[in-house]
């Protein structure tokens, strides 16, 4: 029975496919596998915006939206209707076509990456041989669309925001890729499906998630930090740093185009989180073998939601970094650390299983961490100060 529930969508699709003339089969099958993604993630976006506003509210001793619809959950709908009916302003000096294309491209790019994300057992749109590479390749299109948005608006703030955004995104893309290399080394495949399948096995009750190794943990942390930066989330939300450059690259966007940027950004955040789950947290695999009766997609979304909550939590707490610190952190800490992590993963591979390799690898990473954070602090040595008082 659990298997049936687990596979219910797959079975449903098969059953539906039975009624489709064979000529149309590939198309219909593709549509059937795409439509759930096109529905689920925008819905998740809607839910997340409310959750975020409510969660932040709770952290700040208030309720957050609770009037619009039950518990405020119709808020995104209202926002959507409002955006839809809002006037669309394009600045006179703007580059109209590029201005229009930018939000479209960002949404497309954000959606495309979901093609390789397995959201459940046997539930993936396309099991590509080079899935992870596809993810990064398509993901990098976002940078271009951000540039398009910032540049075409022809406003100083938007351009500044776009330049910031691109600089930040390209800086964190490298650690993002390098952090995932360790998993690929262990899995021996670029296919996300294979990677998850490998993690969905258990020793005793414990699964083989890559996060449960020293290099996996390091990789996961690097990946998550880089993902935060990639999706412009606090504390890396400099491109739209309200207090500095007002709204960043989408400063001139109104109406639904603005909403599309929002959508794109959140979809990007979900996608990178989902990728982190896929690579390090076992994708749709249950955390304990005795919990496998819970459907795989539930696990996937549960993990995703947990990561989203972490994002919200961090957003509610931290101030944002400065650009130079951000860049230093990427290039002088994250990048070397992820390289060392690859090295550590290599060492792990060549050492015999046992406590010794745990020790050695952990040591390598720890030493690297300490040294690098030293180096980082040398640029700007900060400390908790004590103060004197005038008599």
């Amino acid at each position, binding site marked *: 029975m659990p298997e049936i529930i687990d596979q219910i969508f797959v079975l449903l699709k098969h059953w539906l496919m039975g009624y489709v003339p064979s000529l149309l089969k590939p198309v219909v099958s593709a549509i059937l596998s795409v439509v759930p993604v096109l529905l689920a993630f925008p819905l998740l976006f809607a839910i997340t915006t409310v959750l975020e*506003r409510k969660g932040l509210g709770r952290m700040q001793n*208030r*309720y957050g*939206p609770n009037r*619009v619809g039950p518990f*405020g959950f119709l808020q995104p709908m*209202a926002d959507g209707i409002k955006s839809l009916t*809002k006037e669309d302003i394009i600045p006179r000096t703007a580059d109209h076509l590029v201005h229009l294309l930018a939000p479209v491209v960002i949404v497309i790019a954000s959606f495309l990456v979901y093609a390789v994300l397995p959201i459940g057992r046997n539930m993936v749109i396309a099991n590509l041989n080079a899935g992870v590479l596809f993810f990064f390749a398509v993901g990098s299109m976002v940078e271009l669309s951000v540039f398009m948005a910032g540049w075409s608006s022809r406003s100083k703030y938007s351009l500044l925001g776009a330049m910031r955004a691109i600089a930040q995104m390209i800086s964190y893309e490298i650690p993002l890729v390098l952090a995932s290399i360790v998993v690929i080394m262990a899995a021996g495949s670029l296919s996300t499906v294979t990677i998850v399948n490998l993690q969905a096995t258990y020793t005793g009750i414990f699964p083989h998630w890559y996060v449960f190794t020293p290099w996996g943990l390091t990789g996961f942390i690097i990946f998550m930090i880089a993902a935060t930066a990639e999706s412009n989330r606090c504390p890396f939300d400099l491109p739209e740093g309200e207090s500095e450059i007002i709204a960043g690259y989408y400063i*001139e*966007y109104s109406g639904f185009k603005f909403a599309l940027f929002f959508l794109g950004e959140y979809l990007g955040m979900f996608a990178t989180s989902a990728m982190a789950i896929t690579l390090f947290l076992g994708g749709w695999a249950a955390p304990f073998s005795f919990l496998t009766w819970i459907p795989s997609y539930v696990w996937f979304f549960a993990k995703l939601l947990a990561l989203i909550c972490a994002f919200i939590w961090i957003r509610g707490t931290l101030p944002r970094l400065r650009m130079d610190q951000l860049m230093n952190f990427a290039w002088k800490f994250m990048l070397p650390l992820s390289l060392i992590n690859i090295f550590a993963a290599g060492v792990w591979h060549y050492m015999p299983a046992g406590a010794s390799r745990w020790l050695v690898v952990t040591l390598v990473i720890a030493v690297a961490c300490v040294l690098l954070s030293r180096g980082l602090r040398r640029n700007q040595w900060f400390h908790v100060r004590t103060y004197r008082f005038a008599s």
Partner: protein
Amino acid sequence: MDEQLKSELRRQGVVATSLQELYNWGRKSSLWPLNFGLACCAIEMIATTMARYDLARFGAEVFRPSPRQADLMIVAGTVTKKMAPQVVRLYNQMPEPKYVISMGACAISGGPFKQGYNVLKGIDRYIPVDVYIPGCPPRPEALIDAFLMLQKKIDEQYLTGPTRPRHLNADMPSEFIVPEFGEHDLVPTQNRDVWQVPLVNISNAGKNESGSD
């Protein structure tokens, strides 16, 4: 209408409501103010968004720093003549539909400072104001009250027909003259299309008159 609509939405989802209701509901439930404060009243405006009063409950905590994404301009504070062109320009740069709440005595009429040479005697000289909140500063509750009043006002608007609001009517302007700095004063000192005031009945004013009118 408001309560009714809400329960309607809750019960049957959105399909059951008419386009106009849906439109009004969407607009009024998602009023994003422009992140824009001028003076003391702005502090009370901020206080309104803070934990104690929590404007967010109405879905209005999304203070957008850019006018392009804002629906509501809360003119909170004294509009000086030096600032007036900027305020008008910001208002102009907001996309329709847009609303203005004039918060505090200063924004309505210049308030305590109206005798000043650099103080604009009310922002409604240049842009149309939807709701006025008297007070100096108005309490946060008063702002919420005005907010609800604005929501009510939106709720009563028609989508079509001759009484439809300004933004749905192609003949009505959506941007207003941005005054310029003159040698002594702003030029022009008011926008006649926006600012229509009852004339003082000079013959009567100042004379004895029953207060019970």
